[in-house]
């Protein structure tokens, strides 16, 4: 078989290249699987927030709600700051996380608006964007009145 040495070398070289590619792809795939985050959301739960009589009429009530939550291998007390307010005959719970880049907004009494300290986002009392960069309003959480306890609960 004339020239078979040359053919063998070509075939071998191809095999080495392919095998190298397969091994690299396998390693890269493994790294990707390991590095991809396992879980990106925590399940929502209803949390006790306040009784209706706690709500002032002239401004939303700022609450820090604490719940057990998973943070990696920790079970942490996750603290969520929310604004609870009357909404017609019902209630409204707004997230304090700015819809822009996630800073913590604050209720400003004199302006009667929510202000974000980072990039100047402004929201009205209902959480709608009034000014600044936020692309949408503050996130709303579900609120329910627990008839047994008479307490308002927020789904976070």
């Amino acid at each position, binding site marked *: 078989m004339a020239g078979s040495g040359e053919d063998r070398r070509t075939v071998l070289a191809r095999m080495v290249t392919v095998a190298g590619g397969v091994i690299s792809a396998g390693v890269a795939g493994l790294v990707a699987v390991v*590095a*991809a*985050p*396992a*879980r*990106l*959301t*925590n399940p929502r739960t209803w949390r006790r927030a306040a009784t209706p009589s706690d709500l002032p009429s002239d*401004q939303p009530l*700022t609450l*820090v709600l604490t719940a057990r*939550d*998973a*943070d*990696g*291998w*920790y079970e*942490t007390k*996750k*603290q*969520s*700051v929310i604004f609870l307010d009357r909404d017609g005959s019902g209630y409204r719970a707004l997230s*304090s996380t700015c819809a*822009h*880049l*996630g*800073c*913590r*907004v*604050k209720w400003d*009494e*004199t302006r009667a608006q929510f*202000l974000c*300290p*980072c*990039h*100047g986002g402004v929201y009205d009392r209902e959480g709608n*964007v009034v000014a*600044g*960069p*936020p*692309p949408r309003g503050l996130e709303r959480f579900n609120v329910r009145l627990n008839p047994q306890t008479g307490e308002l609960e927020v789904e976070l």
Partner: protein
Amino acid sequence: MNPRAAALLNWLDDRTGFRVIRHHLLDEPLPPGTGWFFTLGSILLFGLGIQVVTGTALALYYAPTPDHAWDSVRFITSEVRLGSFLRGLHHWGATVVVVAAALHMARVVFFGSYRKPRELNWIVGVVLLQVILAFGLTGYLLPWDQRAYWATVVAINISKLTPVVGEWAAGFLRGGPEVGALTLTRWYALHVLVLPPLLAVLVVVHLYLMRRQGISGPVRERRGTPAAFFPSQAARDLVMAFVVGILLAALAWKGAPALEPPADPAASGYIPRPEWYFLGLFQLLKYFPGKLEVIGALVVPGIAMTLLALLPWIDRGKSRAWHDRRFALGGFVLGAAAVATLTSLGAMDRPSTAATSGWNPQELAGATLIETSGQCAKCHNATSGIAGPIEAGHIGRPADWLASHVVDPEVIAPGVRQPPATNPRETAAILAALARMRSGPAPEQDPAAREAALLIDRNCLTCHRVDGAGGDEGPELSHVGRKYDAASIAKRVNNPVDVKPDAEMPPFGGKLTPAQIQTIATWLAARK
């Protein structure tokens, strides 16, 4: 040379070929006119070396978990020998690296060194700049203080704006549902395991290509014979490294970075500020509201970086002389000016609601109670043998532990102690002061100021807010001195109805002595 030593070196050279390597490294011929401007790359390399050494030293003490990161950094700052200096070196070393990289890049542009045949090395340099910035970003989170946490929240949310892969990228950077333990380990791994070898490989490629193509030399070729890198250019490099080293040491010694309070995801109104080299980007974001955000966050910086990388092909000038390259040079100068302007605008634009570094009256009152009332000091002192003195910067217990402890020390440390005789208001003040003392000692107060803070905390803050502490029944008093002088304030405190017939505020005339009212009024009137 001693013949034995020469024989040994010959033996070694025979086996390793080190003379060829040494010759290659040190005897590189440099074109005539290569001077001080060409030391900038060496300064950058020197800065990166400092970062590797100081970073490794910091890693001896640092623990990348939310439970321990902040405490371990505090430990480095306060306990490790020269720890504060070490942290200062790493902090300011990052600034040296960024500044040196920018100047080195500007040198390459003004000398036209990126032109054929050095285009590829220019691109390697642009990629190196991204790696350097990635180091800055990932390192920022590691102290796990307020500034670190919130700057990272913002950075990760910016990555979310990337079209199509944004959510995926943000999730990958976060590692979990929220910025937390998994984010910290991830960024630590990037900072100390992924980026350093990447940097090393790119630096080696950069230097290899530099040697392969040779140094470009001055804009106009000069006559003369090329001179070896060693010793004349090496001496210039060393002089510069020495100057930069001294400057860096002075900065690190005087200005070790402050450690803010531990990361608190529930803190409202905290104003995160990025490190200065990201301030331009931070400022740019403010000009693109709503759906346009992605333009400021990614499109403009992306286009700028792409244009930068393509500079060798944009610049079609006949020669390296400035007058042949007006377009490319003008563009670069404009871009650099834009970055400088945005950075300084970002530095100047501090929101008016920014928390003052000063302590509010509640915290000041708490500090006074801790320092002078003896309630805490009866156990917390150097000689009691019960508990060590309370020291600013050494408070590692979480807030809920401290709250239980102040109300009833017995709960957490059973045995001898009786709870301090404090009312809830004083307890709150002590806790507020302890929270502030995590990051630094209370300011010095004279006796009048101590009394004013105690009186205001006790009598005014139930209804009024001052510097963020207090109730919201009455008007905020943070800047009351702009409106009223001391006499007018004293009158209002004594009997509000005298000034405003329908005032809801109770009179304090019978409750406080005139001297006490005067103390309060004087303190508040100074609030401009």
